[in-house]
Each structure stands twice: as C-alpha cells, then as structure tokens.
C-alpha cells in the first residue's frame, strides 16, 4: 500500500487521475445543490408564512436570539435535551404554544389553552373556536393537557414578549409545513396507553393515572378563597405567579393584596380588591413597573364575576412570606 523509494509506481499519472475524479465530484455536488433550491420544488419559505400579524421570518430571528437550538433540535439538528421542534406546531397547535411559551416553566392546563382561544388571531389561524374542536384538530395538545397540565416543566422561563411569542408561533408554523422528506419517521404503534405500557411497563402507567385525575374535580367549594384556590389551579395561574413574593413571569402574590404597587406609567396604586379584579379582567389596563405588557391574556370573557372575586379572595389570603 505504499510506493517504496525508487520503485516506479506511475505516481504522477495516478495522482492526476485522482484530481480529475475530485473535480467531477465537485461538479456533481454543485449541480445537486443547484437543483435543491429550485422554485419548482415548491419548498415552503418563511416569507410566505405568518400567524396573525406575526411573520415567520421574524420568528426565526427570535428562535436564534434565544438559542433554542442549544437545548432543542430543529430538523434534528441542535442539542438533545428537549424535544425536536420541527413539527411542534402541527402537533400542539398555536393556542397550546401561546399558553406555554410565556411561562415555559409550567405545563398549560385546559383552561389556559381555552383562554388563548378567545384571541381573534388564534381563531383565524386554527379555524376553531371551542376547546373540543381544538383538541380534535391538535391531538398533541389534548394529550399534553391531560397528562401534564398544571405540572412543572423542565424548561426555564424565558423573558419572551407577547410579540416574540407570536413570531415564534409563526416560525414553528413554517417549520411544520417544511417538507423534510418524511422525517421524523411516522409512529406506527396505535394507542397512547399501549405505547406508554411498552415504554414503562404496565405498573408505571397504573401508578401515574390517579395523579393525573386529581385536579379535574369541578365541584363548587363554599368558601370563596377555597373556590379561588381551585380556579387558580384550573387556570394554572401558578405558571406565572408565585404564591410568595418572588417573580416568575408576573408578580408574586404573597402579600400583594393591600400593598402599594408602582405602575409602568410612574404612578402608584394600592392593590385593593378592585385593582386585583381589574388586573385579572384587563391585565393591560394597569401594568406593573418592570413587567412587559401584553403577556397575560384578558380573562374578562372567561371568568364570571364570582370567579374573579373568588380569585381575589384567594390572593387576599396569601400572606407575605
């Protein structure tokens, strides 16, 4: 395998031939590359995709700004700590994403997804206006809500603005529509229960079932604060609001009731029951200094007056810790 000194191996000719072969390879590569991006291939491009007023092209910048690829994969490239995001829009849909992204530390509940469906952009994009129809269209969202809703996730909260959330959804809509030649491979095993059983064995699934069923209780509790606590769980308010005074995504609730709050416009208000109720119904009316506007959805159409009062009573019961 080597050409010893003095032996005539016709090296010069062999080497010239090798270089010619190399040139042919390069030509093939350039031609294939040219064909890859021809218009006639009809591959989707980000400038043709948007979600409401948000453009996928902007979403790609947000995606890179937060280095999402440093934990997740996109078309399979990136880190392997979190799931692949390519088809995430297709699976969970924009309302689930909108409920999840601002407070990624907690998994959205059904009520949290339902809240997002009040948004006109969501209705226009998904073509559905009820949670049942949404779950039918995006089965991944239902599965997530049922299995993980209200729990804590392993993802840290990111300081995403409402605009960035919309742009990310637009970008994920684009990647979902990207033709990736059949990757990731289609799952051919039917039934979630069966798949869970194959992954963990029968025992683990049986143990997990009662825990998931627990928060679903819908009976009305007599005490307003207790009723409020139940609603807070249902809507997963805790994904953004801590029960002490620490900041998660929004302000913490511990000792909030009755305290003085500085607002973004420079004024100060007392956090009395009326202020708290207004902040639940129309969160953007009075935004607390240091917090971005537009991240929290408005609950005025979702919650009845007695529900709002119950939540306020619950916040009232939380002492400063």
């Amino acid at each position, binding site marked *: 395998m080597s050409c010893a000194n003095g032996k005539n191996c016709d090296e010069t000719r062999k080497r010239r031939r090798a270089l010619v072969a190399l040139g042919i390879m390069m030509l093939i590569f350039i031609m294939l590359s040219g064909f890859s991006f021809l218009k006639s291939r009809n591959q989707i491009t980000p400038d043709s995709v948007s979600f409401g007023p948000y453009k996928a092209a902007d979403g790609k910048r947000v995606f890179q700004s937060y280095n999402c690829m440093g934990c997740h994969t996109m078309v399979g490239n990136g880190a392997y700590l979190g799931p692949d995001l390519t088809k995430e829009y297709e699976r969970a849909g924009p309302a689930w994403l909108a409920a999840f992204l601002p407070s990624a530390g907690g998994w959205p509940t059904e009520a949290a997804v339902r809240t997002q469906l009040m948004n006109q952009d969501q209705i226009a994009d998904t073509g559905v206006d009820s949670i049942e129809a949404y779950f039918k269209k995006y089965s991944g969202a239902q599965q997530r809500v049922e299995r993980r809703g209200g729990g804590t996730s392993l993802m*840290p909260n990111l300081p995403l603005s409402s605009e960035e959330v919309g742009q990310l959804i637009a970008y994920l809509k684009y990647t979902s529509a990207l033709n990736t030649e059949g990757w990731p491979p289609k799952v051919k095993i039917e039934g979630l229960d069966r798949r869970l059983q194959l992954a963990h064995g029968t025992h683990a699934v049986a143990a997990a079932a009662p825990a998931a069923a627990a928060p679903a209780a819908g009976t009305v509790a007599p005490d307003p604060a207790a009723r409020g606590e139940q609603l807070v769980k249902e809507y997963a308010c805790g994904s953004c609001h801590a029960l002490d005074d620490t900041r998660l995504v929004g302000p913490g609730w511990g000792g909030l009731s009755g305290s003085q709050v500085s607002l973004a416009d420079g004024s100060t208000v007392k956090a009395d029951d009326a202020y708290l109720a207004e902040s639940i119904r129309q969160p953007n009316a009075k935004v607390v200094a240091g917090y971005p506007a537009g991240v929290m959805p408005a609950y005025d159409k979702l919650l009845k007056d007695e529900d709002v009062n119950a939540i306020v009573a619950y916040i009232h019961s939380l002492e400063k810790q």
Partner: protein
Amino acid sequence: MQIQYQTQRLSMRFFMLMLVLFAAQVGFGLILAMQQTDPTLLAGVLNFNVVRAEHLNLGLLWILAGFIGAILFVGPLLSKRELAAPWLIKVLFYAFVATVIWNVATQALAMRGIAGWWEGQPWLQEGLEYLEAGRAADLVILVGFSILAYVVLRTFPPVREWNEIHWGLGIGVVALMAVWVFGLFYVPRLDMQEYFRWFVVHYWVEGVWEVIHISLVGFLLVLLFKVDVKSVGYAVFWGVVLVWLSGLLGNAHHYFWIGTPEFWQFWGSLFSALEPLPLVFCFWHIYLDAHQNRRPLENAPAFYFILGSVVLEQVGAGILGFSMTFALTNVWSHGTWVTPGHAHLALFGTFGMLGIAAAYYAVPIMRKATNFDQRLGKLAFWLVFTGILGVALAFALGGTVQIFVYRTLGLEWFGGDVFPAMGVFKLLVPTFGFVFAVGAGVLIFDLLTLGRRARAPVAPDARHGVAHAGEMAVHAGGVGGWSRYLTGFEAGIWLMAMWIFGAVITLGLLSFNLPRVREMGDPTLPYLLAWIGYPGLLLVTLLFVWRFLASMEARVAAPAAASAAAAIPAGAAVAAEV
C-alpha cells in the same frame, strides 16, 4: 534535543492557551452532564443552552489553538527558516484571547434573547449550533485565519520545492479561512441555513481539519521516528485525496432531512459510506510507520496521543460515523443521543488528541526538559481515553433507548417518558465525564508545569515509566505475550474486529425499520445489537491501544542495540531528511 529556530517558541503560548481553554471546556462539559441528569440545575443562572454553546465553542477554539501551536512549531522545520512576520503571530495570539473572552461572555445573552441585530446580522451571538459566535467575533476570527494563512505561506519555501506536507498544510490553512466565510451570513430560510451551516461544520472537519490532521500526524511521525518524509508523503497525498473524494459528496449525509430534496439520500448514503476509507488508510500507515523501524519510544506521551488520535478517528469518525450515514439508519439516529457518541470520539479523539500530542512533543523541547518524567502523561492518556470511550458508550446506549421511546413509540414528553427510560445512561455520562476530567486535569497540570517542577533526578528507565512495564513484560514471559511484536496480520485482525462490531451497530440501527420493532413495539433486536455492538467496539478499541502500546513499550526493555541510533541528535536527523 533542542529547538533550531527561535520563532518555534511562539507555539508555546498557543499550547498553553489550548490547555486553559481545554480546562474550561471540560468544566462546562461536566456542568452539561449534570444538567442532563437534572435539567433544573442552574436554570435561570446558566441555562443549558448557554453552557452547551460554551462547550462547543471552546471545543473548537482549543482544537484550533492546538493546530496553530503545532503548525507554528513545525512550520520553521518544514521551511528550514524562521517564521515570517513573528509580530503578526503575537497579534494573532492577543486577538485569539480577546475573541475567546468576548465570545464566552456574549453567549450568556441568549438567556435574555439578545442577539445584537444590526444590518440584518446577529453581532453578539447567533444561536446556531457550532456557529454560536456573533458576527463581531466571526470577523475577528476571519482576520485571525488570514494572519495564520499569510504567515504559513510566507514562511514556506517556493511552491516548486513543496513536498506533500507543505501542500497539505498550505491548502489546509487557506481552506480553513475560505470555508469559514460560509458562516458569515444570516440566512432567512431554514433549509438553506442548514445547508450552509454544514458547509462550515462538515467541510471544516472532514475537508480541512482532516487535511491538517493528516499532514501534522505525518510530520510528527517523521519527527518521532526519524523516518524519511517521502515515505509519509505518499500516505499524506493519498490520505488527503481519499478524504476529499469521499468527504466532498459525503456532506450529503447532512442533507437528508433538513428540507432539501430526497436525492441527497442516495448520494449521501453512497459517498459517505466511503468516508472511513482514508481513515483506514491513515490507521494502517501509523501502524507501518511505528513498526517499520524498531526504535524505542523516546517521547511516550506524544506517541500515545497520536495513536489515540488515529484510533479514535477510526472508531469515532470512521466506524460510528459509518453506522449512521445511511438514510435508513440515519432516519433513526438523527437528532438523538446516538450522534453525540460519535461526535465526542471524533472531535476530541481525532483533533483534540492531536493537539495534545503536538504539545507533548514540542513543550519539553522548548523547555529543555526532554528527559521529563513521562508517567503523568501516560496516566493522563489512559484516563481521558477511557473517559471519552465511556462517555461515548453512555451516549450511544442512551440514544438507542431514546430512539425507541421517542421515535418508535412517539412519546414526546422528555421529563415524563423519555428521561425516565434513559435513566441509567444519563448518569453514566457525568460518571465517565468525571474520569475524563481527572485525566484532563492531570495532563493540563503536567504540561503546564513540565520542566518547571522540582525535578528529582530521573533514572533513565523511570523516565519511560517502563521499569515497571518491563518487569511486567518479564513476568508475562519476556517480550512475548501481550507485549510481543505487533505484526501487520495481528493489527489487521484487530481492525477487522472493530469493523465487525461496527457492522453489528449498523444492523442495530437498521433493525429499527423492522415491522417487529416499528409496528409491534418490540425493541429486543435493536437493543441486543446495540448492547453487543457498542460495548464490543469500545472494548476492542481499548484493548487494541493497550496491545499496541505494550508492544511499543517492550522495545525499551529490548537490548540497547537501537538506543545507539536514537542517540543521533534529532535535529540533525530531521534537517537531513526534510
């Protein structure tokens, strides 16, 4: 042995920088490994994506520092004159340090979503795997590469006097700069962005670094064994050509699923299957070069790491790369832990170990400490070698479980479904990572303080650390047994054993396509093949390196006939041969 050209000393600072960056990279790697087992660790303080960006970037940067050090050290020897424009090298060094500090600092901005957009480019950090550095750092790096290319080409003799090593290094440093340019533009389309990102990543590794690697390994072997540059030149030329013949179109294996057309699956599967050829070729040549003359090793750690580099290139890049390069196996391995198993062996093994080997060769010469105590270096080699093999094993087996749970069963809840299933393998990464880190600590300490430690007079035998190995050899029946001469036939058997296990691994990935796995959800066959393939391959690798080195060490115990030859001043020998 001492240095012949004063400007060779400029390599010292790059070797030292390499060690510092290596230490930092291993530190970040350990944090990552612990975050893999507990993702809430340091959440909000130093998120996983930031730590990973640092780990990848520092990994590339210290490998580059090692390359630059090695090139600066051999440049004057290849040219028989001092380096051109040594002041530029000093500029390069300070620019390098500044870029590293800047880049490490700016990566943390990803936690707040700040990329520094201006004129359509992200100036502070880019959020793309391997190319995380922002445009500002990118441009400084481009200037740095130009300086390196300029100095190397100005130092080299006129082109008509070039031998193959000149050509390899010359093309290498120019291409290093040229390929980098493809990473300097923001690309709005995802498919096109990935297309060009692999230009940089793949063509650096498989086009440029590989060429620099082959040339440097070739020349280091010339220096270590004082062989004729012509005999290596043949290997260098055909090695480089084979790398390009397979690697140029082999890049197609990155274009299977990124939104580019299906035809890449054909070209990628076909040509990247040829990618191991140059590695087998290189592997065979290191065997020939090490065994043609039977001189004892003078600088054992340097040779240990060169051997490690070539063997891990074979195993990590060659065999593990081969197993996942076909569209039908890649469809499963892509985007799972199976790939970092390959990447850790290929990157640290092939390129990292080469930089360390070059440092072990050059630092003692520059510090006038050629009779240094080699035991620490050998110990460090075994620790990092076992450590990285273990890390790769954990990734590969954990990845196999991940494929089944995540892809075959379609369970996408990482915290609830995928992580619990991967359980024990998640713990194995920090465990072997710790072994690796201890080894890295030993070698960094050794190289930093080599020649500066209070030196106890070293007995000529102890310096090789074989007083002991020799005794062992005697017990094992003299120079026979485990440390007998390694014949070409035996080396071939070892190589074949590696490839047989590689075939088992490939079949294991392929078996995920079977209806029994995909439709009935029975993972027995892929699990079984992975459990035979990966541990088998890595064990054979470990044993082979042990066997190879035992055979080399035994030469010291052999009669002193060869030592007379070794006593010729190395510089003179090199000068005569180059």
